């Protein structure tokens, strides 16, 4: 897919991953501009519906990032919940013909600006290979 630039929606938890992304910015670490960041209070707050809606509306990839396991989550176990949801959701996606690799979960601490940048870079490379979201933006047709 020549010239295809994936759009990534990133749900980052306020306490770790968002702070990590912020650090990447303030430290001027270069990373591709493909990600649109949505700050959430905890990775456990990311309702699977948010992810499905993002894909339905044409996101090529979705990143959910939170605090490291086992005990960094500020709400104790939000990260564990997110992990289980995403494992199940990936199965649902693959049953529905959507490549599960489009959905990615990462643990990024407030000091890991470099990790955040590396994750985004890596996602962009992989999504470029995978091509556009097969759902497109369109409605289902009758035929």
């Amino acid at each position: 897919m020549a010239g295809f630039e994936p759009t990534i929606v990133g749900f980052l938890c306020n306490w770790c991953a968002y702070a990590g992304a912020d650090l990447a910015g303030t430290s001027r670490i270069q990373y591709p501009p493909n990600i649109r960041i949505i700050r959430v209070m905890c990775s456990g707050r990311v309702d699977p519906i948010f992810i499905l809606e993002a894909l339905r509306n044409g996101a090529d990839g979705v990143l959910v990032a939170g605090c490291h396991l086992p005990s960094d989550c500020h709400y104790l176990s939000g990260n564990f919940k997110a992990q289980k949801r995403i494992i199940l959701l990936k199965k649902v996606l693959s049953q529905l013909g959507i490549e599960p690799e489009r959905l990615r979960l990462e643990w990024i601490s407030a000091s890991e600006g470099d990790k955040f940048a590396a994750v985004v870079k890596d996602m962009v490379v992989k999504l470029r290979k995978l091509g556009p979201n097969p759902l497109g933006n369109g409605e289902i047709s009758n035929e």
Partner: protein
Amino acid sequence: MSKLNFAFYWAASCGGCEIAILDINEKILDVVAKADIVFWPVAMDVKYKDVEAMPDKKIDVCFFNGSIRNSENEQMAKLLRRKSKVLVAFGSCAHEGCIPGLANLHDRKEIFERVYHETPSTKNPNRDEPITPFEVREGTIHKPIFFNTVKTLDQTVDVDYYLPGCPPPVDLIVKALELITKGEVPPKGSVLAPEKSVCDECPRTKDQKKISKIFRVYEKEPEPETCLLEQGILCMGPATRAGCSAQCLQVDYPCTGCGGPCPNEPDQGAAMLSALASILGVDEEMEEGYDPEEMMSQIKDPVGTFYKYSLPHSIIKRKVMKK
């Protein structure tokens, strides 16, 4: 007061919704006292052309069951919409696609391959499949066109009310008929069922909020008083709208979700997935050697479990087929 005109129609349906109407028993007499039934293919000899000949909006209320699987279903949905003042999506098929909607995991090609060629009871050496239009000596036959995708009624035409359930519980049908015949209808778009979940109507006690192991229904004799989900039997009660008095739970069977999503919930499957992930493996998480993949692999068929009745109505709606 002049009598109301009612119509009942079945599109891609199993017939169960028609039986549910008959299950209101003697209450049907109250209905007939207040309404004339002008179209009901399962019980009356009225042709499509008779409906076409009716003036628009002649039908006061049309109860439409079944999903939209083919062009005939679609045409009838459009025709009955035009002829009806109020259109009710009756039952899970019309409401959210239901079991026929699981065919959205395939497309026409795969379904035809299976049905006309692979099923063990089929002998079809010429590989015949339905062709339309089809020329015969007497003229041209137009058969319905089978669509790739099952749609809900409201993905096809404008719908006024929804009666959930596979089939809708008799109580809900009777209540809906009463409201409608009295003219006390709720706002357009309402689901004619209580604003709560099956768990709220379920008599079983719940207190654990965590489970470690999932059992299929045949693997475990459930204990009669406690919540099935807490016993490890997957129960869609938390993500399913009430209205059935939790009838499955009363006979030791888990809710499989036919009441559709809870109020204001856009995707029943995602809601259940989320709820289950919150309680499964809570004790194990902090243990050495916890393997979340293994924990979640206990759910063998997530789409078939979480979206048994609601795939066409879900956010993603169907499988994306490989080009």
